């Protein structure tokens, strides 16, 4: 009952992510990897991802403040962010990363800065959505265990 309700809630949340394209099919792949042995696999991955990407973003933001801007370094970090975002299925974040890389590649600093801001926003939004989802899941599974 309650758990059922929570279940539904979780499912709905999850579906909305896909609908909004916040997540893509790679996320489903991760879910498939989850099993009895590692029930929290996806959450662990996401925790790691969120932690690392925030570090990346902060490094990028710092790098953008220096003069002259080390665009190679920034691109390298963006590249990494691209890989990890793609692997976890963070769709919108990935798109922003790609956009930023493109703009950076063209050498347009202002646009790049603006793009990075967008990227950051997207990331924050992503985090804000996924964290409660996992929390709910966690609470639910604990409740079920009881």
């Amino acid at each position: 009952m309650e758990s059922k309700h929570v279940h539904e809630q979780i499912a709905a949340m999850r579906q909305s992510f896909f609908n909004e394209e916040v997540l893509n099919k790679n996320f489903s792949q991760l879910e498939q990897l989850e099993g009895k042995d590692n029930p929290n696999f996806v959450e662990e991955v996401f925790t790691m991802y969120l932690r690392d990407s925030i570090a990346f973003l902060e490094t990028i933001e710092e790098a953008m403040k220096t003069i002259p801007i080390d665009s190679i370094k920034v691109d390298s970090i963006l590249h990494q962010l691209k890989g990890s975002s793609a692997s976890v299925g963070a769709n919108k974040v990935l798109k922003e990363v790609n956009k930023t890389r493109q703009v950076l590649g063209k050498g347009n600093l202002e646009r790049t800065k603006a793009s990075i801001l967008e990227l950051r926003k997207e990331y924050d939004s992503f985090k804000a959505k996924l964290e409660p989802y996992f929390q709910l899941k966690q609470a639910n599974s604990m409740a079920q265990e009881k």
Partner: protein
Amino acid sequence: MNVSSVKGSMSISSSTSTWKAGDTISDQFPAGLRVLVVDDDPTCLMILEKMLIACLYKVTKCNRAETALSKLRENKNGYDIVLSDVHMPDMDGFKLLEHIGLEMDLPVIMMSADDGKQVVMKGVTHGACDYLIKPVRIEALKNIWQHVVRKRKNEWKEFEQSGSVEEGDRQPKQSDDADYSSSANEGNWKGSKKRKDEEEETDERDDTSTLKKPRVVWSVELHQQFVAAVNQLGIDKAVPKKILELMNVPGLTRENVASHLQKYRLYLRRLSGVSQHQSNLSTIISAQDPTFGSLSSLSGLDLQTLAATGQLPAQSLARLQAAGLGRATAKSGIPITLVDQRNIFSFENPKLRFGEGQQQHMTNKQQVNLLHGIPTTMEPKQLVSLRHAAQSIGNMNMQVPPHGAQNSQNNPLLMQMGQQQQQSRGQILVDSTINHAPRLSSSMGQPILSNGIATNVSSRNGIPENIRAPGYSQTPSMLNFPVNHASELPGNSFALGSTPGVSILTSKGAFQEDVNSEIKGSGGLMPSYDVFNDLNQHKPQSWELQNVGMAFDTSQHSNSLQGNLDLTQSALGQQGFSSGQMNGHNRSAAVANKAMFSTGDVKELGSAQNVNQHLNNLLVDNTIRVKSERVCDTSPANIFPDHFGQDDLMSALLKQQESVASSENEFDFDGYSMNNIPV
């Protein structure tokens, strides 16, 4: 064959890999495939690991390239395939790819979020088996085992090609192999078996070759002819059919040429990749012109054979190769330096070899020399292109020292292993090789050999690992396996210079294996590409018999080989290792032949059997080799004779070289190695 059984048990048990346990695993193949995944991003690494586990693979993860390399080095046979990210902070993924290719010859799959054409192309040119775009799907990972099987199969193929192993001869081997395979890789076996079948059917050569004709061993001469033909046609336009026509070698089939060409191309690619490193070497090599002159004619192949035949070969081969390479490119000027080096080597090598630390130096030298002396597979014409490679090789050799750490490690190991015995052997070998000078023109070779030998001797023990050194210095390894140290590698010179040493470390004590392995390594170097592969491919089964036969047969055609053989024999005889050595040589020769020479060298080695073994070992697979080597651990001296599987080879070899005696030992490895082709 008793060999097989022995081997089976030995090999399988020895080492490392999961495949050992093999017998049971084979059914589950590709489950249990040992994957090493390298990625600096922890998120990706975690996901990949999970996916790979879901595929039932055995996963080891690293987040740094250096860590990955050291893991690979310390456990050469411990992995079947490597997955590496392109973008890594401490080392470029392609660089890692090169290292692995040279040192361990494992299949490597690159991954990246980048899907740009350039990057993918870079992966191809650096020798990656595959390139995956991130995010990596689990479906893509489910199939990575195919690369392992393919590689093994290719190695086998070479093997087969070199010898007439096909069926008849192979049978005993097959059974042996079967033993192994069952344990190890079903997949591999199937692959190889299938291949065999196919070959039998399609390869007209088989029919002929199975008879007296040993499998096609790419001797130095043959290889030279090949290279000449390719050059004439132009590397881009060279098609097997035309090459075959140009070469006009009776009994050579288009398939032989085709597979050899494939290897050759890979080899060239690799060389160009590492050429930067080797620039140093190349110069040295070129300096050796005069020496090369004689050598060059030999072209890598000769060297290989020489190397294969005896101790000399390995080294000389390396030198020759180096020389060959060098010559082609530089011819001028440097020759002298090379020569000098050679001289230096001659004395120093023996000494240096043993002296661990020194070896490093020597190795460099040796390496250089090796390259010179070893025209090896690289024909003069090719040399030009190779020059690049040579340079890279040179670098490699040079690099070896840096890797040298490995070498030094090897050396000590080697030294430890058979130190005494080996040393004496090495000494003997050295002496003998020197005497043989005529063979390779050997002056070059000799020093190398001596080094190699010396090192090999000691390193024999450790050699098993050498085998790993894919392709590189054939020469050194051939003879001396033990010499994995960098110095030995020179033969391998191409590749890895450094790694060869590493391989030696395995020092199993099974000299033979080492020898083989080395030989392989060295022999293989040259070819680093194809020859070696071929040798490897032909692997064990065919090897043994074929190599042996080939080895013996070739003796005629490659003087050097004979000389070497003699040397090896005599040298070996003295020690008791000799048999082993011989084996080693044979093996190495075999290996070398396969790898590098593949053609004649093996024959010469009388110990061809051994060589075969080695070759088998080498070719079969680094992992396998190592295994075999492990098997040999039993006792250096004993190892040789006991080698299993080698019966076939041995008999063949024995015919030619009764003195070789020890070749048996080598077979043990071979037997093993061949079978080892685990996944």
